[in-house]
């Protein structure tokens, strides 16, 4: 049976089969990113609503690019320009967007569970592009795709996540996805950012919290860095100097991980705070691959939620005719001096 997805609100409720399907469906879209002409007609005539109630650059552009590469049109709502400041409720805003008849709603919001709340009231698919400190499903998927490409598998890896775990929706999505494939997690950061309750958020997944980075990196296959999110801090936080001293990932510390360990970061990076430049730019870093894979994963998500996968197992990105890349629109750029 081909899995069907009504909404994509969180990775926690998805099965390993469903997650594998999502990753496999992303694969052909990765190829598209290498074509000179990247536009498909899969969602031609469809409209994707992008509602970002919280600031975002990369995720918004990534979803927008994914939509346009599928041939869809987009409508954009950004918090600054929205009517929320005029007192409209979230639900009224969603109803108004929906009245313009989009085919799905991609939504980011600072309140955990806000997409769940909206999805209960809308009949179009709702895609969570990050909700508060809860989940960031597309980030979890693109991280898994990146790991699978580099390591050949996402099964039974030692995954270390460093930083502000308490406020990280990325970490929660990583744990819920990779945990279903037998990965073991070590979470590390200052104690106020790594509550012991995290050890129990995913039943059946081994998660341990440690407070010394040297211990956390020992034997790691995958290291996921988290950005220090100053905008989401309610607690008095530790001083930046203490953070660098205790938790910055530098080349020396990275040696404790397995020699073929890889380093991920969801961005934007605070160079020199959580990650040293030599690691960010080093051979083990996957940071830019993650960004490229983000577009592929989001193309797969939009495709699967808006039209649903083809029952015959065909995939739109595999049906691209050879001429596709040699059409009139794909001209050789004119010479600058002409």
């Amino acid at each position, binding site marked *: 049976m081909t899995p069907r997805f009504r909404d994509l609100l969180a990775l926690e409720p998805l099965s390993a089969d469903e997650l594998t399907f999502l990753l496999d469906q992303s694969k052909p879209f990765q190829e598209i990113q290498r074509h000179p002409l990247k536009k498909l007609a899969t969602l031609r005539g469809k409209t994707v609503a992008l509602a970002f109630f919280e600031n975002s650059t990369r995720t918004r552009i990534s979803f927008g690019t994914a939509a346009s590469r599928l041939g869809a049109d987009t409508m954009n709502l950004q918090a600054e320009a929205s009517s929320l400041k005029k007192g409209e409720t979230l639900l009224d805003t969603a109803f108004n967007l929906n009245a313009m008849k989009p085919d799905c709603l991609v939504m980011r919001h600072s309140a*955990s569970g806000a997409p769940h709340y909206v999805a209960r009231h809308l009949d179009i698919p709702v895609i969570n592009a990050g909700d508060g400190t809860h989940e960031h499903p597309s980030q979890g998927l693109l991280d898994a795709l990146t790991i699978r490409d580099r390591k050949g598998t996402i099964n039974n890896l030692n995954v270390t996540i460093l930083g502000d775990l308490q406020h990280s929706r990325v970490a929660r999505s990583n744990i819920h996805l990779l945990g279903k494939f037998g990965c073991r997690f070590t979470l590390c950061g200052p104690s106020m950012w790594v509550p012991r309750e995290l050890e129990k958020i995913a039943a059946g997944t081994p998660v341990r919290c440690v407070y010394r980075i040297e211990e956390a990196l020992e034997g790691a296959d995958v290291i996921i860095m988290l950005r220090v999110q100053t905008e989401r801090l309610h607690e008095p936080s530790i001083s930046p100097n203490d953070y660098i001293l205790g938790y910055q990932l530098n080349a020396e510390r990275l040696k404790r991980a397995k020699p073929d360990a890889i380093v991920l970061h969801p961005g934007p990076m605070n160079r020199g705070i959580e990650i040293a430049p030599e690691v960010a730019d080093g051979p083990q870093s996957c940071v830019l691959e993650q960004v490229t894979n983000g577009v592929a994963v989001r193309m797969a998500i939009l495709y699967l939620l808006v039209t649903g996968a083809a029952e015959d197992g065909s995939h739109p990105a595999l049906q691209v005719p050879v001429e596709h890349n040699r059409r009139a629109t794909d001209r050789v750029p004119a010479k600058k001096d002409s």
Partner: protein
Amino acid sequence: MLLIRNGRVIDPASKTDAAMDILIDGEVIKEVGTPGKFSSLKDVQVIDASGLIVAPGFIDMHVHLREPGQESSETIETGTKSAARGGFTAVCCMPNTKPVHDNASITRFIVDKARSVGATRVWPIGAASVESKGEAIAEIAAMKEAGIVAVSDDGKPIATARLARQVMDYCNSLDLPVIEHSEDVSLAAGAVMREGVTSTRLGLRGMPGAAESVCVARDVQIAELTGGRLHVAHLSAKSSLDQVRWAKSRGLRVTCEVTPHHFTLIDEDVQYDSRFKMNPPLASREDREALIAGLADGAVDAIATDHAPHEPAIKDVEFDRAPFGILGFETAIGLTLERLVHTGKISLLRLVELFTTGPARVLGKERKLAVGQPADITLFSTTQEWKYDVKDSPSKSRNSPFDGRTFKGGPMATIVAGKIVYKR
């Protein structure tokens, strides 16, 4: 005259549990007698209470009627109608109205309004401090003269230990209880639910149980210092109950209440549905077991609903933004039967006590079924199945997590001052 016939009378004050008939004349109980004793009387309105429990009128000592100021969520009229439907004959309304009930003219407004449109008795609670700001003491004596039965800065605790001391001292001289919404606001800052595995999983900001018990500990010490009467509102944490037990063991005048939702639901029930958002928030499984133990062994003095209506426009929003509070009146008896009586944790006599003599004692009042007493009577069933549909509620709000729940037993008739104000 009104005759309640064939019922099983449970009266904690006299430890009565027997088949009795009750004759009401005007606003008071005229006589209580053996079944059939009044059958020869003519021109009597009869309520057949066969198969029902007949108890002294239930008191809900912690409610929000939203009037004056937030009449789009509730009024004295709609709130007391809902209370009557829940089997309550008297309710104590908290002072966090707009403006705050911190002066005698508002007390008089509430008392007058309740007299003209209220379905039940309304016993107002006045603010402890002016505007509940925690700075200056409110005109408590003047409010008492106008009819308040207690003081509280409910919605928050009395801001400082110093002011709490002065209020408790002063209220001791006026013989009024001080009701505390116990919360260390710095520990609870920004929180929308109880801290734990569920809050961590959902990415919702949590407050620890200690946010409550730190404040209870402070107030218990001040109760000892002043000798005053302290009542801990909507107690939710085991650690808080431990403080109350300690205070009682030292003979301090400290009491507490527990809400039906805290002995029914826990933090694991929260699923981004704002009908599960209240303060104090739903606690842990362990806390719930401790509360039930306290309700059974007497450490808890009363069940109170903390009926907190909010109109859909402000409550049906993202979990983070929704105000705290849920409806309470109409599901209180049903939940108490379901969770405590049908499970064998407490007796029916104890249930009646928790809704009558328990809160009455805290408020310095009497509740009993005896000749000459006000005819405030609650009739309820322990067997009849019914479904709670919040759309049928006279309340102006709809914020109940128990909408659609089926109950075994619930309120059947409510009599206030000899008048039938609700009958199922």
